[in-house]
């Protein structure tokens, strides 16, 4: 639904970087790997949090 605040595995705060990652790699056309390197999200466990995430607030909001 929303990006988790922290990486499930190591506990690093990753929510901080979501907006920028989304703007540059999802909506922009930069290479996600390079954006993550740039943001300092280096470990595979933290990277998968960002790469595999999908915002769902738009999907569920009509059903309140």
């Amino acid at each position: 639904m929303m990006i988790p605040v922290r990486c499930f595995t190591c506990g690093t705060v990753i929510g901080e970087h979501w907006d920028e990652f989304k703007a540059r790699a999802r909506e922009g056309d930069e290479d996600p790997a390079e954006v993550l390197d740039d943001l300092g999200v280096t470990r595979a466990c933290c990277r998968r949090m960002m790469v595999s995430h999908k915002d769902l607030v738009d999907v569920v909001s009509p059903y309140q």
Partner: protein
Amino acid sequence: MVNDFQVEFIEREDRRARFVARGLTPALANGIRRAMVADVPTFSIDTVRFVENTSVMFDEMIGLRLGLVPLTTPLDDFEPGDTVTVALEVDGPATAYSGDIESADDMVVPADENIPIIELKEGQRLEFEADAVLGYGKDHAKNQGGVAVGYRHLQRVEVVGDAGEFDEQEPNILRGVIEEAAAEHAEGDAEDGDLVATETFGNDLTERYPGKEVEVHDVPEAFVFSVETDGSFDVDELVTRAVASLGDRAAELEEKVAL
């Protein structure tokens, strides 16, 4: 017993550091690591009183997310168990960020300001007041100041001979930090005793010592610590507080034994 400790930094930033510590026993290294994770308290939101929550998430889900937001923790000014009141009020359409959290104390504020708490649509609203408590990582993971804290042995790489002339050299992967012991065979500038992070040569020993046969040994009593914090305080604070917590407990024990 005389201690002869030596600490040498490989990288040192506010929130992450890597250093080689020499002269400690495995017991002490592990004690320090465990103390960094469990025995250095941090502030974390613990109780939330919702005034209004018409977002798509339940109160409990928002409460969970709030607990995980790191708060700056000046340990000199607070005792474990102290509370600081924080509050947030956001009207949709907007996203409530950790930076929107207002704190009653300027010293205890969100360490990161761009963590999305919840996206609010038109007509949705989030308002709450919450208590942040200074607690221990031992009791709840949200209070852990150290994140991904660990150590490994410092490794010494020695060149023992040449690889067979017609052998295909396979990658020889090693991760961590090595102590240079064969500078004359290494690629680039090197001196014996240099501490080299393996990333600098792609974690592959055949890149650094091409055509050589190498042996890797652990260096006794030398540990490469890699420490990251969640932003509650900097790495130096975390390490020194963790070590001090061991000393404090020893002092308490000495006092109680004397009785």
